[in-house]
């Protein structure tokens, strides 16, 4: 009897140990990111956020861990497809990353065919969520940027706007949406598209100065475009009241690298600078980021962190239910409903974060001040105000 009880006890201990070991898993997660090519700068920023998310998740989850495998997509669509295929062959359970709607589209198509969840913050083009990809998720979208820009322009009462936009998919989409919305409100709008390779913006700004005579120049492009446009405007000095951009503009990096060009320029931003995180999630992110990279976090890292953390949490929930290999990750992603550093995230049936609304910030005295919406403002909106 005693021997039987001992055997039962030992079997129970062994079974418990085996079960707890079996349910705590390490999951491979793929990061398909541009680390070289035109998008290397933003890709590197996003990767930092992904690695910080992995670090924080592994420390806090207590049960499951993730290991990131990164493949460079070289800012090229064909290489993005190859990167996803390579990650799939290495046994990843999902993919985080991607930048540029032109690259994300084929990459997420591939992920979809391979049955892998693909989450990104680098593609805002509407076609990404209207093509029936069941495993595609994104935490930001054109509508969020549009709402922010339109909200700020309405608050300042702009009556005429010249939109200068790159002919890439995401920038064209946003510019067209903003144009349509402004026209519907009775604002006079003129649009000037430009080839991404353009470096001299003086002819465009001169047209705005002499023909459009708008109150506001709205820029929809990337860092190098903004620098070129603002430089041209500083030379030609059109009689405008503000220069407004979207992503990658209202950042501490732009303030530090181009101090003469940034004063009073508006752009979208989720964080003021200097940054102050008040939530536990924010502090964990900030502390881990500074420890790993010895610098202040930026918006790219923040987006990379949020998208990845949501993914890791979904993987963990699916793992607990034993459904990781049975489409459980996508299912858990659809159930996501939580406050994050970018606000509340909930995914609609098409994978879009239906709650995403950006904020507008303004460069003031080498700081980035959130000026719209008023409930999130960290300072006063200064208008009219120009970088010269």
């Amino acid at each position, binding site marked *: 009897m005693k021997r039987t009880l001992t055997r039962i006890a030992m079997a129970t201990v062994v079974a418990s140990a085996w079960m707890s070991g079996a349910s705590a898993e390490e999951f491979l997660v793929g990061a398909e990111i541009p*680390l*070289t*090519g*035109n998008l*290397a*700068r933003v*890709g*590197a920023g996003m990767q930092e956020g992904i690695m910080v998310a992995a670090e924080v998740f592994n420390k806090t989850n207590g049960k499951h861990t993730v290991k990131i495998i990164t493949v460079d997509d070289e*800012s090229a669509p064909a290489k993005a497809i190859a990167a996803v295929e390579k990650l799939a062959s290495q046994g990843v359970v999902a993919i985080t990353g991607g930048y540029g709607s032109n690259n994300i589209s084929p990459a997420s198509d591939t992920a979809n065919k391979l049955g892998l969840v693909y989450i990104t913050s680098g593609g805002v083009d509407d076609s990404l969520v209207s093509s029936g990809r069941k495993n595609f998720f994104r935490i930001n979208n054109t509508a969020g940027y549009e709402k922010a820009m339109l909200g700020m322009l309405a608050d300042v009462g702009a009556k005429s706007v010249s939109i200068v936009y790159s*002919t890439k998919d995401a920038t064209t989409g946003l510019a067209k949406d903003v144009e349509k919305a402004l026209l519907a409100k009775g604002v006079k709008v003129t649009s*000037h*598209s*430009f*080839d991404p*390779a*353009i*470096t*001299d913006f*003086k*002819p*465009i700004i*001169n*047209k705005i100065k*002499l*023909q459009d005579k708008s109150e506001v120049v709205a820029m929809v492009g990337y*860092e*190098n475009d903004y*620098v*070129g446009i603002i*430089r041209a405007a*500083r*030379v*030609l*000095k059109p009689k405008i009241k503000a220069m407004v951009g979207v992503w990658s503009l209202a950042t501490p*990096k732009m303030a530090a*690298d*181009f*101090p*003469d*060009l940034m004063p009073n320029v508006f752009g979208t931003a989720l964080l003021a600078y200097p940054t102050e995180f008040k939530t536990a999630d924010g502090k964990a992110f900030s502390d881990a980021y500074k420890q790993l990279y010895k610098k202040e976090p930026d918006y790219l890292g923040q987006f990379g962190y949020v998208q990845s953390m949501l993914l890791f949490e979904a993987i963990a929930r699916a793992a607990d239910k034993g459904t990781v290999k049975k489409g459980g990750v996508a299912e858990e992603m659809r159930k996501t409903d939580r406050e994050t550093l970018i606000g509340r995230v909930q995914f609609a049936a098409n994978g879009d974060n239906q709650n995403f609304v950006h904020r507008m910030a303004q460069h003031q005295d080498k700081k980035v001040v959130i000026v719209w919406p008023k409930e999130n403002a960290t300072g006063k909106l200064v208008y009219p105000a120009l970088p010269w």
Partner: protein
Amino acid sequence: MTELILQALYSGLLQGGSYALIALGLALVFGTMKIINLAHGELVLLAAYIAYSVESGLGLGPMFAIPIALVIVSLTSVGVYYIVSRIKKDREINSLILTYGIGVILTNFILLVWKADIRSTSSSWLQEGFEIGPFFSMRSEVIFFGVSLVLMAALWRWLATSWYGRAVRAVSSNRDAAKLMGIDPGRTEMVSFLVAGILAAFAGVALFSYGVIQPAYGGALTVKAFIITVLAGIGSIPGVLIAAVLLGVAEALTVTLASSALQELSGMVLFLLVLFIMPNGLFGAVRRRG
């Protein structure tokens, strides 16, 4: 409208000067060795990043980077020559592949050292507006347009009067005959790469001073330089300036009168049009008839 067009012509002229500075080195090597150095854009970019390092590290203006850029970029250019000179067969085709690979190596070296962030001068003085009557530009654009003219004149004179300059022209014309006349073609070709490196150094510092740089830009610079070189016609230095200005003006007028989205297309259309009408380039045919 007149004001718009005049400003476009002025902007196009200045932009053309910048293009000419970038294209000159490629044109020289192409003329001498019939080799398209696909790493030329990366050499220009290397000089631009050296200018960035001097400005950000030492707090000096980009112009002070010129001596350092001259040494590093011209030595790198000579290094490219030594690799290319190892090709024994089908030099024209094989050098394309080889220099493309060297370009990839240089791009990734730049990415490794300087990262992917966009860079440009933070010098207020260089970025300040410069007005000549009704025409507007950045101060740096005018300065480097002048530098471009001086360098072109200096190169033209060097080719016309110096021993090595005449040797370069002789080798370009007939390599074997030049050898028979006592000219060392290998050394002459090396000199042309060295001079191309010197020109790329100036072009890179100029680019940093008026534009924005990123590691991935090298390829685009090489393509622009190649278009201008072919437009000009092989071996024509003044042709490079005229072709570059033509391209700059065509682009500026397209943006002004049509759409900025068509800027790059206008350059390509001009390229194809000139080649269709004058297959040897603007000045290549004239030289042959002469």
